[in-house]
């Protein structure tokens, strides 16, 4: 079981998935760029989870899709400090000064200088992926510097990797994982901070691209989302459902198809209103059916206002039932929400005291009862859901949580003693991820 292996294993999985999906992309007539974007997004999301050091972290991988940042930076370095050794000397000085015992800085200059500068330059331009040079340039000093960098930057947390560096010289072909970060700056004159900046720049760029690609419709969706995020989670779920229902009232055909596809695929994670965007002009995002049957066009602002008023109304109506408690506390409570109280609330809603918005949305009086029933169901099922999934959600509350996903070879029990043999697993614990081939567990009940 190792955390260091995670990076390379995941990289391989990503590469594998990307390769095998290429055919599917072609069949679907989707451009290769999207595939590449998928990979980059995937990697950056994974890095964002911070569960391990990934090969692409210190030096974002392919110069292909993000040429603006890498080469421009590279150009800067070369134009400012013409000989690459200079940079190395400088950064070496900065980093080494507090450690007089090392005494390397003066000697660092000549070392890489032995390699002809042309050799260094391509190494850098390929994102430093040609690591084999580094051990050549001076195995032990590089190791020392790597260790010091690690120590300086990550302190105690890096102890394990420092040990690893000092105890064994990594084989040159090994994909640079933890060692990648320190080697790179030591040899190429890029401090980790710079790399971080580069990485962030690229992410920002990617984000910016995505945003420009989005239609105004989806911007409103984003506003909508961030707005919702501030609200209580349960109210959020309900409001989304309500919004979805509203949308479907009008845009039934499209929503029904696309929305359901999204739902099936991703457990409802797909944002509700993404479909049905194109046919409506930006001004009127959604149409509302007035109480007397005429259609009212609603822009973003109105929708936001509507959602807000609904959420507030819901919040008020829930306070009595203790539903405004944090989700975790709520779940501890038994499923004691009597149907009586629900009924009271919905009656209130029908009388229009609380759920003003709801009643409007449901349209004319003729089918009022039917719709109202529908809404009531929605509320009930939402109320019940957290309780039903009590065990499941308890852990997901903690974000990534502590979870081991694996296969079992053997599960044995003698009285209260359990013995299990697991294999091929991924373990997430304390914010770090580990992969293992085999695991043996013993525990008593």
């Amino acid at each position, binding site marked *: *079981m*190792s955390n260091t*292996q995670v990076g390379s*294993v*995941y990289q*391989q999985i*990503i590469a*594998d*998935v990307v390769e*095998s*999906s290429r055919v*599917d*992309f072609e069949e*679907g007539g*989707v451009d290769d760029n*999207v595939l590449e*974007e*998928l990979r980059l*997004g*995937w990697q950056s*999301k994974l890095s*964002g*989870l911070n569960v391990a050091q990934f090969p692409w972290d210190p030096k974002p991988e392919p110069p292909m899709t993000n040429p603006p940042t890498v080469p421009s930076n590279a150009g800067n370095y070369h134009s400012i400090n013409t000989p690459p050794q200079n940079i190395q000397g400088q950064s070496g000085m900065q980093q080494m000064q507090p450690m007089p015992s090392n005494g390397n800085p003066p000697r660092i200059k000549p070392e890489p200088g032995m390699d002809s500068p042309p050799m260094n330059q391509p190494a850098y331009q390929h994102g430093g992926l040609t690591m084999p040079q580094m051990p050549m340039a001076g195995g032990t000093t590089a190791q020392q510097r790597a260790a010091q960098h690690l120590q300086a930057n990550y302190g105690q947390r890096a102890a*394990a990797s420092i040990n690893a560096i000092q105890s064994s010289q990594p084989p040159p072909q090994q994909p640079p994982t933890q060692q990648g970060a320190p080697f790179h700056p030591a040899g190429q004159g890029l401090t980790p901070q710079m790399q971080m900046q580069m990485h962030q720049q690229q992410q920002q760029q990617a984000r910016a691209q*995505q945003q420009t690609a989005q239609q105004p419709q989806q911007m409103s969706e984003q506003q909508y989302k961030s707005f919702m995020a501030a609200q209580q989670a349960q109210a959020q779920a309900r409001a989304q459902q309500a919004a979805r229902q509203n949308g479907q009232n009008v845009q039934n055909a499209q929503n029904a198809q696309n929305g359901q*596809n999204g739902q*099936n*695929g*991703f457990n409802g994670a*797909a944002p509700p209103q*993404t479909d049905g965007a194109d046919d409506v002009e930006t001004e009127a995002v959604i149409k509302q059916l007035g109480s007397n049957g005429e259609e009212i066009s609603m822009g973003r602002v109105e929708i936001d206002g509507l959602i807000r008023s609904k959420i507030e109304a819901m919040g008020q109506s829930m306070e009595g039932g203790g539903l405004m408690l944090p989700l975790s506390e709520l779940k501890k409570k038994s499923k004691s929400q009597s149907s009586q109280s629900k009924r009271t609330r919905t009656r209130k809603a029908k009388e229009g005291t609380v759920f003003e918005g709801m009643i409007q949305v449901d349209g004319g009086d003729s089918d009022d009862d039917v719709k109202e029933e529908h809404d009531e169901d929605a509320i009930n099922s939402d109320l019940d859901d957290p309780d039903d999934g009590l*065990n499941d959600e308890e852990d997901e509350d903690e974000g990534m949580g*502590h*979870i*081991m*996903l*694996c*296969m*079992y*070879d053997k*599960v044995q029990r003698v009285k209260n003693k*359990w013995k*299990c043999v*697991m*294999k*091929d*697993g*991924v*373990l*997430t*614990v304390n914010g770090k991820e*580990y*992969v*293992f*081939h085999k*695991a043996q*567990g*013993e*525990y008593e*009940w």
Partner: protein
Amino acid sequence: MAANGQSFYELYRRSSIGMALTDTLDDLISERRIEPQLAMKILANFDRSITEVLADKVKARLTFKGHLDTYRFCDEVWTFLIKDVTFKMENSSQTVQAEKVRIVSCNSKRPGDPQ
């Protein structure tokens, strides 16, 4: 699900790498860059890929001990909630402790799967 006939567990979609992929696909779908059907195919590819890579490339072993809080066996899936767990990696003295950990585990021998 998978077009190649053999199907793989979707279990690993809950891991960080699976979640990251799902999120990314979600983004692409909501930007209407790809169709949900394509996303399903990619996820199927992921199921296969992670199963194979974990089986072939990973050699690490570990042992763990703890107190079993909850166990469940349903549809050939074991779920354990273990408290006060200590994970011990083989080949290193490193141990990791956790207050509780959930184990979700599918049968390594799939019925009708000649493994």
